């Protein structure tokens, strides 16, 4: 191979690399312009936490406060909180999504309206009350809390799924049937893939609801970050209260953000 050719090849390669870089840049720019809002929330979360730690850092903490805010204590409660929200969310999805699909079948269309109406009205049913009632029924503790959380989030997620499946373009379903797909094939190859964004949105709703309600699980002895708030109120310690509130808010925002990112990816994939 002569040097001349090598040079040309090099130049071409360089050009190709440059071209690739440029393409990469425009791709990134496009990504940025589409999803810049996803950066706003983490920024808010970070700001919130920084303020919190700066504030607490300037305070002289007494021994009680130090004990409550010890990393081990907070970390344990945080983990409980995540477990509570995670377990109940999985349960909600396992129950609500298949049920929602079943309700959207031709045979069950008549039940749909009532379910939607009740689901809408049930937004006024306080999850806190549901959670406490479970304690009377099943005793205090983690399992009871998970059951209560699941029940409280069930109707909203079911409602979301049914509405989402309703919105799947009817002409697409007709087209699928027209091409000779069975109703089963239509469900699995057209309706469900098209409804995936809806299901993911349902996941997000369930997560947000459950993270919120899980903070109240401490009232039935199931732990979680609500415990921090309860202790702060009992001990009348404002510093603990602020840290507790800040951490809970940050966690909820973070989880919602993560769910939002997953949602974007899924929606982008399913076109």
């Amino acid at each position, binding site marked *: 191979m002569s040097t001349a050719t090598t040079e040309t090849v090099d130049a071409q390669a360089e050009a190709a690399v440059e071209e690739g870089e440029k393409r990469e840049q425009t791709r990134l720019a496009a990504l940025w312009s589409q999803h810049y809002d996803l950066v706003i929330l983490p920024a808010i979360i970070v700001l919130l936490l920084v303020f919190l730690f700066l504030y607490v850092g300037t305070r002289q903490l007494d021994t009680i406060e130090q004990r409550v805010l010890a990393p081990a204590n907070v970390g344990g409660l945080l983990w409980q909180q995540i477990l509570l929200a995670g377990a109940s969310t999985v349960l909600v999805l396992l129950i609500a999504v298949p049920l929602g699909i079943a309700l959207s079948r031709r045979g069950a269309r008549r039940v749909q309206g009532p379910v939607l109406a009740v689901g809408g009205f049930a*937004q006024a049913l*306080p999850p806190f009350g549901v959670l406490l009632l479970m304690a009377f029924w099943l005793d205090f503790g983690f399992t009871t809390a998970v059951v209560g959380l699941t029940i409280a989030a069930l109707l909203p997620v079911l409602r979301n799924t049914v509405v989402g499946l309703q919105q799947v373009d009817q002409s697409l379903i007709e087209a699928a049937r027209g091409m000779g797909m069975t109703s089963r094939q239509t469900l699995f190859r057209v309706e469900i893939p098209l409804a995936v964004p809806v299901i993911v949105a349902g996941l997000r709703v369930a997560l947000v609801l459950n993270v*919120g309600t899980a903070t109240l699980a401490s*009232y039935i002895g199931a732990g979680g970050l609500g415990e921090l708030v309860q202790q702060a109120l009992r001990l009348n310690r404002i510093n603990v209260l602020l840290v507790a*509130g800040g951490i809970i808010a940050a966690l909820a925002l973070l989880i919602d953000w993560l769910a939002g990112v997953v949602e974007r990816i899924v929606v982008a994939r399913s076109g």
Partner: protein
Amino acid sequence: MNFLDYLASNSQQILFLTQAHFLVVLIAVGIGSAISVALGLAVSTGEPDPRRFSLDWFATGIREGGLVFTAALLTVPSLALFALFLPITGLGVTTAIIVLTIYTLYTVLRNTVAGLTTVDRAILESARGLGYGRLRRLLTIQLPLAWPVILNGIRVTTLISISIAVVGAVVQGPGLGILLLNGISRIGAANSFYQVLAGTLLCLVVAAVFEIFFAIVQRLTIPRGIRV
């Protein structure tokens, strides 16, 4: 003693707490909706011209930012917000109302913006062609046409607020949450279960009252020509 006996013998307290619950929600939703609708009206301008700097840019920025921000607030668990506001506004009704108001913002703002911006372009164009100025267009065309959507946002936010207001009892806010906290702290004692049950179910009664209220408001305020 069964549940009905419990309700009957404690009717005065229960009625008082139900009324308090109703009022707290009404006040918070009232304030929140006023803020959101006003903000929505102020920032629902057309798409800003990307090549020319104008006030529309601020409006669009506030609108989009406001929606993202209030949506984020809605995901913050109520216990956390109550905890964060307690040191500032203290125990009691003020904190309860402030926090509830914050939760009402997103839904109403979103519906206001959506309602105002989805008004048929042909109608707006003909209004402009007949010599309607911007403000007149906003108040006499866009607002009445968006009103059903806005009202529905207020209705939904009311339902959500009813269940959030329960948690307000944690900061000694008034309402049915007091029954819940009382009951759970006395678990095992007489009527503690009925107390919690009453607190939970009466939320639905409050919701039903609001639903009737909104049905009437709808009837009275949605212009006849666009009533479904």
